[in-house]
Structures are given as structure tokens and as C-alpha cells.
């Protein structure tokens, strides 16, 4: 097989259908970009789950009365609640955090937002039991047992909040993946169409090739490579798009959240890890579409 010959045929083919080629590359790029975005969200959720695993707590918030008057949890009802909590099965540890400590913690979490800190008063922060569970699924038991007891203002389950947050992220991921799928379908049709047009514009060449006894590989490979090259250019553009999206958009809007450690930052490394998949998908899809099109629709 003369590679130089096949390569020059590919270049001519792509140049001859330049508008179709551009459409094909753009659609592929958008599809792969969305797929990449979806994969990045998956990575982010995984990281967050790893971050929070073992750190999840149930907080029992105490009433204002207790918060104001019982700094060390030595009086009732605080002391009684504590011993009750410690006696509950599945509880690993119970830490009492009084109002001042709670306010310090609040300041640490939101140090990136001075406006918020200016508004906050220690009086708004209740004294709290922070409870670690051996089994994170047992939060409901604590909630049922302690909600409404004297001195308890409420039971706050971080797990529930995070669950909702993950649901939001997973929804985002699903939307990205569905859009990617629709775009991929459009890309597939475009690839198929481009190959058919390409085969039609080169029917004289292909006719001669068949006549002088060129093998199927020789007549079809240029079309196939054409599709794959366009797919790879699409994947390159998609990766570039993700990098630009991160640098100029994502980093700005999520700076506060990532700096305060609430959500893990998406790094260039994450994009680097995701991109081989995009290339793989691009190559597999364009090659199979090309092959099937040549088999079904193009008589070469």
C-alpha cells in the first residue's frame, strides 16, 4: 500500500468538499465537547464524593436558649442530649460546638466572601452537636429520635443536602450527555452524507481504479481516512474548546466555591484524562459510520 498516494487522495477529498468538511468537524466537535463536559461532571462528582465520604455529619442544632447560656454543655438539657446521643447505636463520635466556635467555623468557610461575613452575627449561629456516624445511612434514626426534644431546634443532615447537590450535578451531566448524543447523531448523518458526496464527486477516479484492478482497500480507504481525519480534528477542537471553557468561563464563575473547598476545582489534568476518550469515540464513530456507509450506500 502506497501511503503517500492514499494520503494525497484524502487531502484532495477534504479540500474538495470544504463546506461539508467544516460542518462535519464542527458538529463532531460540539458533540465531543458536550460529551467531555459530561465526563468532567462525572469526575467532579466522584471527587466530591471521595472528599466528603467519612466527613459527613449530622448536626443537632440547639435552641437559642441553650446556645446563649451553656458554653460547655454542662447543664440540662444539653448534657442529657449528649449522653443520649453517645448512647445511640451507630454513632461514632459526638462533638459539642458552642456558639463562638460555630461562628469561627463560619468565618473560616466564608473567608472568601467578606460581604457575607460583615452581615453575619454570632447570635445567628446556634450551638451544635456534630455527630459522626459509623454508618452514614443511619441519619434518619438520629433525626427521628432527637427532632422536637427539649433544647433541640432542629436536626440538619448534610448528607441530604449533598444528595440534592449531586442530583443537580447529575442532572447537568445527563443533559450534557443527551445533547452530546443528539449532536453525535447529527455528526453521524453528516459523516455518512459527506462520504456519499465525496464518493460521487470522485466517481470517475473510483471508476478507473476499479477498472485497472485496484483492491477494495485502495478504493475505499481514502474515504474512510477522510472521515477519521475529520473526526480527529473534531476531537482536537473539542479538547481545545474544553480548555478555553475552563480558562475563560468555568474558573471565573466557580472561583469562590473552589477556593472555599465546597466543590473540587476542575483542573487541566482532568481535561487531559478525559480527552483520550473523546479521541477514541471520534475515531470509532467516524470509522464505523464510514465503513457502514461505504458498504450500504456507495457502490465502489
Amino acid at each position, binding site marked *: 500500500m*502506497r501511503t503517500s498516494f492514499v494520503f494525497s487522495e484524502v487531502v484532495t477529498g477534504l479540500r474538495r468538499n470544504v463546506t461539508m468538511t467544516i460542518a462535519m468537524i464542527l458538529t463532531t466537535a460540539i458533540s465531543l465537547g458536550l460529551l467531555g463536559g459530561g465526563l468532567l461532571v462525572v469526575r467532579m462528582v466522584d471527587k466530591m464524593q471521595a472528599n466528603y465520604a467519612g466527613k459527613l455529619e449530622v448536626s443537632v442544632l440547639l435552641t437559642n436558649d441553650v446556645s446563649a447560656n451553656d458554653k460547655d454543655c454542662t447543664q440540662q438539657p444539653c448534657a442529657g442530649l449528649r449522653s443520649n446521643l453517645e448512647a445511640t447505636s451507630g454513632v461514632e463520635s459526638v462533638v459539642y460546638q458552642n456558639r463562638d466556635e460555630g461562628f469561627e467555623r463560619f468565618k473560616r468557610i466564608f473567608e472568601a466572601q467578606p460581604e457575607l461575613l460583615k452581615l453575619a452575627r454570632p447570635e445567628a449561629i446556634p450551638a451544635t452537636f456534630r455527630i459522626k456516624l459509623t454508618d452514614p445511612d443511619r441519619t434518619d434514626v438520629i433525626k427521628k429520635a432527637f427532632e422536637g426534644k427539649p433544647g433541640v431546634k432542629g436536626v440538619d443532615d448534610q448528607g441530604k443536602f449533598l444528595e440534592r447537590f449531586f442530583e443537580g450535578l447529575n442532572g447537568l451531566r445527563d443533559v450534557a450527555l443527551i445533547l452530546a448524543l443528539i449532536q453525535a447523531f447529527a455528526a453521524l448523518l453528516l459523516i455518512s452524507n459527506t462520504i456519499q458526496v465525496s464518493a460521487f464527486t470522485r466517481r470517475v*477516479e473510483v471508476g*478507473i*481504479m476499479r477498472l*485497472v484492478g485496484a483492491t477494495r482497500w485502495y478504493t475505499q480507504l481514502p474515504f474512510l481516512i477522510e472521515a477519521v481525519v475529520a473526526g480527529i480534528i473534531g476531537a482536537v477542537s473539542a479538547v481545545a474548546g474544553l480548555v478555553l471553557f475552563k480558562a475563560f468561563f468555568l474558573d471565573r464563575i466557580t472561583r469562590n466555591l473552589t477556593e472555599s473547598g465546597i466543590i473540587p476545582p476542575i483542573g487541566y489534568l482532568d481535561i487531559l484524562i478525559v480527552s483520550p476518550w473523546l479521541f477514541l469515540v471520534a475515531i470509532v464513530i467516524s470509522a464505523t459510520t464510514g465503513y457502514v456507509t461505504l458498504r450500504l450506500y456507495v457502490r465502489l
Partner: protein
Amino acid sequence: MIRLEHVSKVYKTSTRPALDDVSVEVDKGEFVFLIGPSGSGKSTFLRLLLREEVPTRGRVYVSNFDVAKMSRRRVPRLRQSIGCVFQDFRLLPTKTVAENVAFALEVIGKPRNTIVKVVPEVLQLVGLDGKEDRFPTELSGGEQQRVAIARAFVNRPLVLIADEPTGNLDPDTSQDIMLLLERINRTGTTVIMATHDHGIVDSMRRRVVELAYGKVVRDDARGVYGVGR
């Protein structure tokens, strides 16, 4: 070299067979005219040899290929041993004379050094030396047909099939093309030429196979175009 045994070909779109129980044998190195009116089956005859069509009945042999029965994978090998020339030349307008000829070798995977050696040789044989870098549009009809012949012959085929090669050319130019085909025939290549050109058939006095309504109606060793002319 070429043998058709009781070959019939019926196209799906037609009730009348394009070829009807045709048996013809052509020896190595023969020069055969295939004549007959339009629709008599000449083109089908040639397409069967190239395995562009498969016969409905009968067997077709070219060299040692059992053409009707061979697998698709082997078809390229068959076609590499047959050269083809057409009325409409079928040259690639974006390629030069030399590139058009080289194309036929490139696409069957011949190495570069072979190509640069044989292309000038065959261009000299057909009398086109010095015009290697011209484009087909810059050539006369006769010259374009020479390029097509060079392309058909460059791989030294066993058989050269010519489908009305002089159909678009004036009589003088046609004579030149016939001289060229004769020269190629003298190298041992079997030539099968479908034509309507009385003058050429009559002056060459070669074997004539005449088809009418898909049947062989005449097979003369040294024939003329029309009987009793």
C-alpha cells in the same frame, strides 16, 4: 485465452436477453472486432469479461480465471490483467498525462521506482514523449486516446479491451489509433475491439465476430464489416 461457453445474460429490467447462448473462443495474441448494431450485446460481452456483470447462464474464462465463478476478492487480479479503452477516454482532468498513466499503477500498489521507469517507456510507445506534463484538456482527441491506451497498456495486460475507441475521432486520427492498437497486438496482447467503424474493419481484415439481438450471427477469420460489401 478467452472462452465464453453458452453464455446468456438477462437483465432484470428487460425481457429480451442481452446475450443469448453465446459461445466464442479467442486465442492468445488474436485481434478481434466485435461488431453489431447498438443493443446487439457488444457492451454486455465486454462487461462480462471484466466481471462488471455476471452471466445468467454459461461460463466465462479469461486466461486462467473462471470469471463467472470467482470470488469478489479475486476480481482486482482479473482486472489487472485486462486493459480498457473507451470512446470517451475517461482521463482525469486534474492530472497531467504522465500522472494519468501513473495513476493506474499507483492504485494497484506498484512501487515508485517501477512507475518512474515504465511510464516514460509507455508514453514513448504511444508517441506522446514530450507531452508528459500536459493536461488532457490541452490535447487533441487522438492524443487523449493515446493517453488512455498508454494507461490501459502500462501494466502489460494479457488482454486489451477497446469499446469503440475511434467513436469520437476523425478518420485520419482513427487510422493512427488503429496502427497503435496493431502495434500493441504485435507484442502478444490479445485485443478485442467493439466498433461501428466500417472503414477500419474492412481495411484491417482481422477476425470479425458479429452480434445481433444477443446472438453470434457471424464469426469470420478475415472478415469485413458487412457481408457482400
